[in-house]
């Protein structure tokens, strides 16, 4: 179960928005202060650890740049929720240990709502509006990677041990 205050964005938040190309040459830590800068320069300054990142359709489209989830992770983001994700961004999140959750009703979630996410049972509860939404349960093999803290620890613990 995860609980937190919501940062809410709409459709097609692509990797050029999350991680603007102009700052790619900086380190992740330095680049992180420009996360979301093209549409919300306030995000990186005001984001508090524990807040949840919620968007609508096609979150993370565009580049394969892992800087996008890494910059989010550097700010403290551990959970992202969207109606659906772009493929590489989704994989990147899982591989670096960010829980990526699909929920068809994120249009009903608003900026600053406080929500509880029960990702094992596939349910989100909005404390602010008292509404319930269903979300995807995390598939088993993905939970295995998340439980190991991401792909690398998983490979260390499972794959590199057996090969």
């Amino acid at each position, binding site marked *: 179960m995860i609980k937190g205050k919501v940062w809410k964005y709409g459709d097609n938040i692509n990797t050029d928005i999350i991680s603007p190309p*102009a700052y790619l040459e900086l380190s992740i830590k330095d680049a992180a202060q420009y996360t979301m800068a093209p*549409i919300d320069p306030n995000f990186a300054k005001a984001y508090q650890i524990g807040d949840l990142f919620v968007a609508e359709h096609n979150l993370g489209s565009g580049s394969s740049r892992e800087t996008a*989830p890494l910059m989010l992770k550097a700010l403290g983001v551990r959970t992202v929720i969207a109606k*659906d994700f772009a493929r590489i961004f989704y994989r990147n999140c899982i591989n670096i240990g960010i829980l990526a959750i699909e929920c068809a009703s994120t249009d009903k979630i608003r900026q600053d709502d406080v929500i509880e996410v029960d990702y094992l049972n596939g349910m989100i509860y909005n404390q602010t509006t008292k509404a319930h939404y269903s979300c995807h349960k995390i598939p088993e093999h993905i939970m295995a990677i998340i439980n190991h803290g991401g792909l690398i620890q998983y490979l260390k613990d499972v794959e590199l041990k057996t090969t």
Partner: protein
Amino acid sequence: MGFTMSEKIMAMASANDGINVHADDIIWVRISKAMMDDVLGPRLEIDDILTDLNASIWDKDRVVIISDHYTPPANVNQADIVKFTRDWANTHQVDHYYEFAGPCHQVMVEKGHVLPGEIIVGTDSHTCTYGALAALGTGVGSTEMAGVLATGITWMKVPRTIKAQWHGDLNAMVMAKDISLKTISVLGHAGATYKTIEYCGETIDSLIMDERLCLSNMAVEAGAKAGLIRYDAITAAYLEKFGVTETFEHINPDEDANYETVLSFDAQELVPQVACPHEVDNVKAVSDVSHVAIHQAYIGSCTGGRYNDLLAAATLLEGKTIAKGIRLLVSPASKEVYDRCLKEGILTILADAGATILASSCGACLGIHSGTLASGEVCISTTNRNFLGRMGSKSSEVYLASPLTVAASAVTGYITDPNAISGGIND
């Protein structure tokens, strides 16, 4: 029920060889080649993770590293990144290292690093380009790449397949870029997420490899994992240049393969297309936006800077001059393309028309050097993305079109259908 190309390729690479796999299965696959660039390659996490894992590269011969985004470097940061990448390749004894050779995907195919039936991962989303050679290329992040470097395997969900069939002959002044934009506009920019697009039909069969590469390159702009084109005589002839005589018919899709969707298009109805700001699926006929004035026209990138693209532009521009006050920038998609166009006089024709010839680089394509847009400027470009701020200022705008449309627009200073300009290749 038969199998799609993705299912066949992934079955061959799966842990239990020969066992058939189906769309939606989640499997571990062996990777044939791993490609890293400078911007998202070793310097980003990968080096740290490998050190942390105390792992060495599983098979150095299967690793290719290409410094392309930051070559030639525009500042000290970029120069340091290229230096780091070069030194890293050296220390890790990766012999397949290239720099100043052009955008990575063109270098990969030109240097023979892409073979049909292979699964290739790259730290760049346009790794799907290799689908034109019937290889399942797909982009991955740094962490996943580090995992591949250490183990040679990764997890994948077998994608469902959308079959995009194109029938009939293309009209004059219409190119693969127009096919690509039209298909993406129908699918939507997320319409193929986690899926493969198989391009087929006699229109695709008759495309030369330069054109096929453009189609596969842009598959990710519909969200696709891969954009595959079946292996045929054109693929075989292309591979022969690298001494590959083996044939690969066995990876072509079965007649009764299981497709999620089948789309059918009539090439005869296709006119030059343009993707308007700020999404690749915001596509219109060029003639519908001909009032838009431009400041910059760009011919380049792993999408639209190949030999055939420059040849098409030169044929249209021969004996003409670009409009006053605008700039036409040309960056051949590789050093090889550059050299060939130089020898054949294509660069001279372009330069005589007023073009500035740039190094073979990613630079302008993502607004990091060599052609960055100022506030409020408009560019028409042969590249693959027109996202907000992609080529520079947040308030600049990028329109995506074919090399012929970009060349025609450079002549008038407005977005222009190449059919409105005389002297084109089909004139």
